[in-house]
């Protein structure tokens, strides 16, 4: 199993969720994060002094998937989250050694 963790723009969250739903992914977890990357932060001014807020608000979406689904999920996220501009984000893929469904105690693929 793999854990897919995508850093995307806030306003793309609904689209990504719908895209994932469409290919049969039923669970995911979203987290508010702040990103720092090629996209430069925005300038703010406070009481006459300008300063750069370097971390930009992003959402991280985590989806656990079976190995065979990985490619489909990756391209689904990539196409639904894309605007073509800098700051679109990144997807990270981790190996997942086990999954447990708390309610039932099931392990592995069954728990997904």
């Amino acid at each position, binding site marked *: 199993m793999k854990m897919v963790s995508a850093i995307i*723009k*806030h*306003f*793309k*969250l*609904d689209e990504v969720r719908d895209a994932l739903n469409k290919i049969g992914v039923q669970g995911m977890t*979203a987290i*508010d994060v702040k990103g720092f990357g090629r*996209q430069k*932060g*925005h300038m703010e001014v406070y009481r006459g002094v300008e300063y750069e807020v370097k971390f*930009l*608000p*992003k*959402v991280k979406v985590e989806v656990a998937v079976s190995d065979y689904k990985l490619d489909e999920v990756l391209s689904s996220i990539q196409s639904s989250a894309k*605007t073509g*501009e800098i*700051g679109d984000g990144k997807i990270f893929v981790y190996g997942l050694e086990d999954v447990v469904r708390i309610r039932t105690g099931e392990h592995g693929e069954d728990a997904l």
Partner: protein
Amino acid sequence: MIRFTAILTLIFTLSVPFMVFAEEAAPAGPSLGLTISNVWMMVATFLVFIMHLGFASLEAGLTRSKNTVNILFKNTLIPAIGLLTYAWFGFNLMYPGTFNGILGFAGFGLPFPTVGGALDLSYNEGYTYWTDFLFQGMFAATAATIVSGAVAERIKLNSFLVFSAVFVGLVYPILGSWKWGGGWLDSMGFYDFAGSTLVHSVGGWGALIGAIMLGARKGKYVDGKIKPIPGHSMPLATIGVFLLWLGWFGFNGGSVLSADPALVSLTLVTTCIAAAAGIIGAMLTTWTISKKPDLSMVLNGCLAGLVGITAGADQMGLGSSFWIGLIAGGLVVVSVMMIDKMKVDDPVGAVPVHLVCGIWGTLAVGIFGAMAGMKQFGIQLLGVGVYGITTALATLIIFSMVKATMGLRVSEEEEVEGLDLGEHGLEAYPDLALQPGAKSSAL
């Protein structure tokens, strides 16, 4: 719900004849004295009105964000329900004119006195009929608000609204008539200037009975230990207390019922000295006991001083006001902790502030100031007792009836999830949820 609407509509339709129209309210040369006093009494009315925002802010601040919409909703409804029931029958229950001293009723609606087709301005030297009604009506609604804080975070919305309507529409006016309406306790010499007992203790008893009948919030007392449930916004709570202090200028100052310069200004000074002393008293007590000075206690201390001085605000000198306030400030801290130990869960401290200090203030009239004396103290004690027993009983009956018919407490699931979602389907701070578009997010 639809049935409820229909009944309400019916009831109001029937009552309209009782609401006499004021089509020709053109006045004929009001006296200057009346005009001045009436301006003052109107200002006092505005100040009492703003206490409702004070209560709303304080209660919202001292409870959790998942119940904030519910609190704000209740506190918006209370003045509405209060004013309408008071207009419909409460005012005439409280001030029935000459009556048997226990229960009287001057009829539905507000049949204003006229002379030559216009409003009779000889009604009172200090205010017109309309000002009288509005000032008293704003007062009435505060009693229900006091209960609201103590039962917060677990009471069902419609149960609370029904309770409030009965409490503010019937219980408060009838009990009020015994003293302010010229009833039997008034005849006996019981003194309560602006309502340490009539408003605050009455509200406080309602709060106590309500809190006991509902039981504690889930998670407050676990394995015999007290687990604090901090409120969600100290700025809101502080705004609330400052607005309440502001409102008290009208609550006490308006209770002079005229613009008498000496008496009103003395009242304002005693009120402020007691509030200031309440803050100091609570600070010293909490700093001594807890090692750290607790803002929420100091805020309660300010209110404690205000409630304490209310019964005798026109009877005290500066020294007396100072001591009444200082003691009230200490009392409130100690009683918050005691009530907590008794496992009565009162999220905002309504019982310590309004009940405990309401009693203290009423008795203080017999201890300090112009009326001090054993005999007066005895009468004050009697009044405290009478109001205590009758209010507690009345509240018990109403809450029991509501419980039997509609239920009192929300489900455990709703309590965990928060009443905002359960009762209203709305969050207080929706942007804190993860909503696309809500966050300010750079592209």
